[in-house]
Every structure is written in C-alpha cells, then in structure tokens.
C-alpha cells in the first residue's frame, strides 16, 4: 500500500477525538489522585507516634518537601513529554529536587555520624519501607499511566518512568508520615532503592498498559 492509500484509509477513520488537556491540568488531576490515595493509606495506617517531634526538630520536613517537589516536577515533566511537540529536556525537571532530596538524606547521615560515629553510615534493613513504597507506588503509577495514556504512540518509556518516579516520591512521603524510622542511612538506602525500583519497573512495563488503555 502506498502512502496516498494509507491517507485515504486514515481519513475514513476520522472519528472525533477529545483533545488532551494541557499538562498543568493533567498534573493537577494527577496530584489530586495521588493525594487521595496516599492520604487514604496514611489515614488508615495512622500517623507515626513521633511525627510532631520529628517535624518540630526539622529532621523530616526538608526531606518531605523535596520529595514532594520532585514528585510534582516528575509528574509535570511526564505530562509535558506525553505531547509530541514539547521539548524532551523537560525530562530533566525533577532531577534537581530529586538530588536535593538524596542530599538531605545524606546530610542526615552526616549529622548522625557526629552523634554516634561512623556506624551512622551503615544502613539497617527495612524491608517494610521497600514493600510500602512499591505496593503503593505501582498502583499509583498505573493510575498516572492511564492519565498519560496518549503518550503510548509517541514516547511511552520516559513518560512511564517519570510517572513512576512521581508516584514513588508521593509514596515515600506517605511512608515518612506513618513509619517510625530514625536512622538516616536506612531511610536513604531503602527509600532510594524503592523509588528507583518503582521508576525502573514503570519504564520497563509501563508502556504496555498505556498502549492497552
């Protein structure tokens, strides 16, 4: 079949389509969905008992703020990249806040080392952190992937990865609100590992449900 025949066939299939909303609108819908899901899980689990002290001493607040900024930036970048005419450099948007987030956790390790010595850099094992972020992050990623399903025909992999990163950041905030964990190195390793895992899984398998949606 030549291209002219293909054009005739495509034109014959010109059903009306609903225009994709602008990235700002899609991001707001995504944030509302993520906040509802994470909020429901936090409400169900209950806040960690030492949350007021942790927030008052300023230990967890910068981490949560930077995780939130990284989550919003990753979501907004995903909805930008989901449109063909947008600059692919949007993919870099969440990198500074994500690095800042990792840096605050690293700084927490340094501060702890002043109190307890080099042992502060040895991470403990916290499988529940991993399970919580993955178990919450993957369904959230599916929800975000549905909102960005129009990217399936163009660049689904980076869009899915960014949605996964965004979902994992929000899941990490939820975890910080419910799970008692003091050791900064443990938080750094297990939150970081879980967020990386969700982002990679989203990039690897995310495009398929997006195409099917």
């Amino acid at each position, binding site marked *: 079949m030549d*291209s002219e025949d*293909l054009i005739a066939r495509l034109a014959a299939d010109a059903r009306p389509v609903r*225009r994709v909303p602008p990235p700002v609108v899609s991001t707001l819908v995504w944030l509302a969905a993520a906040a509802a899901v994470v909020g429901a899980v936090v409400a169900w689990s209950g806040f960690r008992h030492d949350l007021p002290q942790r927030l008052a001493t300023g230990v967890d607040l910068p981490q949560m703020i930077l995780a939130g900024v990284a989550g919003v930036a990753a979501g907004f970048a995903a909805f930008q990249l989901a449109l*063909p005419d947008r600059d692919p450099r949007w993919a870099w948007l969440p990198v500074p806040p994500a690095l800042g987030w990792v840096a605050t956790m690293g700084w927490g390790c340094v501060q702890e080392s002043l109190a307890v010595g080099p042992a502060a850099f040895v991470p403990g094992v916290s499988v529940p952190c991993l399970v919580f972020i993955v178990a919450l992050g993957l369904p959230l990623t599916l929800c975000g992937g549905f909102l960005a399903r129009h990217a399936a*025909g163009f660049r689904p992999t980076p869009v899915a990865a960014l949605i996964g990163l965004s979902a994992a950041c929000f899941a990490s905030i939820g975890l910080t609100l419910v799970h008692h964990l003091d050791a900064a190195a443990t938080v750094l390793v297990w939150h970081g590992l879980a967020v990386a895992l969700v982002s990679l899984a989203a990039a690897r398998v995310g495009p*398929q449900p997006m*195409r099917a949606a």
Partner: protein
Amino acid sequence: MSAAERDLTDARWSALMASAQDGDARAYETLLREVLPLLRAICRARLRDPSDAEDAVQDALLTLHRVRATYDPSRPFRPWLSAIAERRALDRGRSRGRRLARETGIEDAAGIAAPTRGADTSAADAQLRRAVADLPPAQRTALSLTKIEDLPLTEAAARSGMSVGALKVATHRAIRTLRRRLGLPD
C-alpha cells in the same frame, strides 16, 4: 517559501487539524495530503534508502493518526508534526541498523548457490505480494513489523501504536488470511 506564507500554511494546517479532531474526514484527508511532502522531506533527510524513508512516512502517518488528540490548536502545527516525523524516521533508522547487523553481506554469501527462479516462482511472488497488499491496514502493519522486519513485540507495538496483545492477534489473523487466499491449509 517566505515567513508570511509559512505562517499562513501553518494556520491553515492548524485549522484543518482542529476540524479533523472534531471528526471532519474531508479536512483530515486534505491536511494529510498537504503535509505529505513535508513528511517525506523530513524522512528523506534522515534516511538514505528511499523505501525506508517511505516506510517512515507511513509510520509517521499512523502515529499522527493515533496521537491526533494530543495536538493543541492554539499552538503551531508544524513543530508537532515534525516531532512525530523525526521520531519515526529515527526509529526506522535504528531498526534498519539492527537489521543490517543481523544480515549476511552479499559478498559473504557468494558461495551460497542461488535457487533457480522460474516463472512459477515469480507468479507465486506476485500472488503473495497482492495478497499482502490486500490485507486490512492493521494486519499488514502487524505482519510487516513482526514477521518481515522481525522486530521484538514491544518495539513493534511502540511503532504501530497497537498493544502487544492486539499486535499478536493482528499478526495471527494476517497469516490466516494469507493462507486462505493462497489456498493453503490452516
């Protein structure tokens, strides 16, 4: 083309695309025919082989159709269209590179005896080509990507815009249709 003419063309294409999004088949066909030379120019600038370039043009048309809801009529049309064509040309170039890496050079294959091609073989070839050309577009695309280009299913799905499941079904149906048309048992 002057900048003013270019702006006028862009505005016209943008309006046609907006109508196409509302289901106006005539506007859509007019638009696709008008942008075809631009798609060809972009793909030919990226791909030296003319048949690869034309395949990339068709990939771009299929992608345009699939993602037509992503066009925002308040923005210029040309960058949206060009991004799609550039992307599909790049994909086609990559898959060609992988295909060439798997193929044996003609010099290396000189020792392999070529089969004698008689009139029967030519007639069978022509019959097969006709049967493939008559397949519905989705089946032909699926067959071309999965069996002729031999792409992995995930890549073929990305290229065609179909899900992996739909691609498998379309390929299966294409082969069944071909067998039936060529008088072969299922």
